[in-house]
């Protein structure tokens, strides 16, 4: 079953750079898809378009059969809350406790005012605790997010995404600012949780080796177009070279 259908997606930024050229691909439920490509290839723009943090110039994105690109503000909130997003820079509210940061994942489900004053329900709080247990951070719950190490912060970010009870997780370079060991921990958490809960996941990575280890499917992006789409075993060295080769600007 297709959870995400992207058709003829194009994004041209205000300064005239074309980030995506006519991209089309589908993602099935339960896939762990990894997008690889050199920086500036358009990986980020793909993920951000799916969450509509970036407004695509043209094309369509269907998420669970709902059109994202033209949805109203209210509809967008409902769509966004079903997509957890994880960032390279963690992007937690540093001055707030770890537990609160996880609870932020519930904001999309609450009425605007209740969420604003932080009146989270008992069930939400219980759920947040069990998520912290899953990422092994219960003993840090009352600490400020800013006091944690990078790897721990990313685990909090994963818990926040999971708090949204998402159908899809979008992870934009989740390990790019972490050391190799921590990176492995994070990828393990991400993979295991998505696998256990049946959450579809799209990850941007630039480490090909890591991608090969976890991906059920790899998409290679170069200069705003998809030039590879297949399994890890199908990704040969020459394909990799092709993806990372810079085209000469004519």
């Amino acid at each position: 079953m297709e959870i995400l259908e992207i058709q003829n997606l194009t994004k041209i930024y205000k300064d005239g750079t074309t980030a995506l050229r006519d991209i089309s691909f589908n993602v099935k439920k339960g896939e762990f898809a990894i997008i690889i490509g050199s920086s500036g290839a358009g990986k980020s723009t793909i993920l951000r378009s799916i969450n509509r943090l970036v407004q695509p110039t043209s094309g369509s994105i269907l998420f669970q059969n709902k059109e994202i690109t033209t949805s109203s503000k209210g509809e967008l909130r409902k769509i966004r809350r079903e997509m957890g997003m994880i960032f390279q820079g963690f992007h937690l509210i540093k001055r707030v406790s770890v537990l609160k940061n996880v609870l932020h994942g519930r904001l999309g489900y609450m009425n605007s005012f209740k969420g604003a004053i932080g009146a989270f329900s008992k069930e939400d709080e219980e759920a947040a605790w069990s998520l912290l247990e899953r990422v092994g951070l219960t003993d840090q719950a009352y600490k400020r997010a800013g006091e944690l190490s990078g790897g721990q912060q990313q685990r909090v970010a994963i818990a926040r995404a999971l708090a949204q009870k998402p159908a899809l997780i979008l992870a934009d370079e989740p390990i790019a600012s972490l050391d190799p060991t921590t990176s492995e921990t994070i990828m393990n958490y991400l993979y295991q949780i998505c696998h256990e809960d049946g959450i579809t996941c799209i990850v941007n990575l630039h480490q090909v080796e890591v991608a090969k280890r976890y991906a059920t499917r790899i998409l290679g992006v170069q200069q705003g177009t998809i030039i590879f789409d297949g399994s890890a075993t199908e990704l040969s060295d020459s394909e990799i070279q092709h993806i990372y080769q810079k085209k000469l600007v004519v």
Partner: protein
Amino acid sequence: MKPSINHIQKRKKIQTILIIGLFALFLSWSLIDTGFNVPKLLNGIGETFRFIFIDMFPPNLSSLKGFMGPALDTVYMSFVAMVISAISAFFLSFIAAYNLTPHPTLQYAVRGLASFLQSIPALVWVLVLVAAYGLGLIAGTIALTLSGTGLLTRSFAEILEEIDMGPVEAVQSTGASWIQVIGQAVVPQVLPGMVGWSLYKFDLNIREAAVIGMVGGGGIGFAMQRSLSLFQYKDAFMAILLIFTLIIGIEYLTNKVRMRLL
């Protein structure tokens, strides 16, 4: 499973609540004592808008010519006061900086004097000085000079305390005298910073000079106050616009120069 909130966090929470409570208490005390309330606020803002847009608007452009003289006086007054206070502060700051002072007792004395000069608002100085020098620019200039000397001595001393002592010791090691060390190793390091602060003080002086006139210090403030008390509100509005332009203009100018300096 869930750890309880540890007591450091609890204490922090109590501390925060205490501070907020204390402040709320202060605020309500102030609100009650000054007889302040929201209807009064709204009413007051309404009255003010009526006053500004009906009585003061539009500004009387023909009064501009008469205000130009006092406005220029304000600029001259601010500049002269700034230069005199910068020069006196320059000498005082060497005594007030702990790393260069000839004697700690002198250091404390000069620091105390500077704090005193700075803590008394320039307007209070004017009030006292007017009694001795009469109404006019002399009282205003001296008032700005006094408060400026306080501020600049303190900030110059801070600049001096942050200097790199390496070159100072190097010059000292050649057998140079105190004055020579200051002139050759210290002044070049601190001069841009000091000029920067002086320009900033000039900027502040313009703001203060604009109001000093109101209690008799001469300049544009005096002219504006007179228009108000003669109920020539449209003239007063012109003067306010002129003051506004002056402040913005000088701020822009001094900022530009300081950017290039530092």
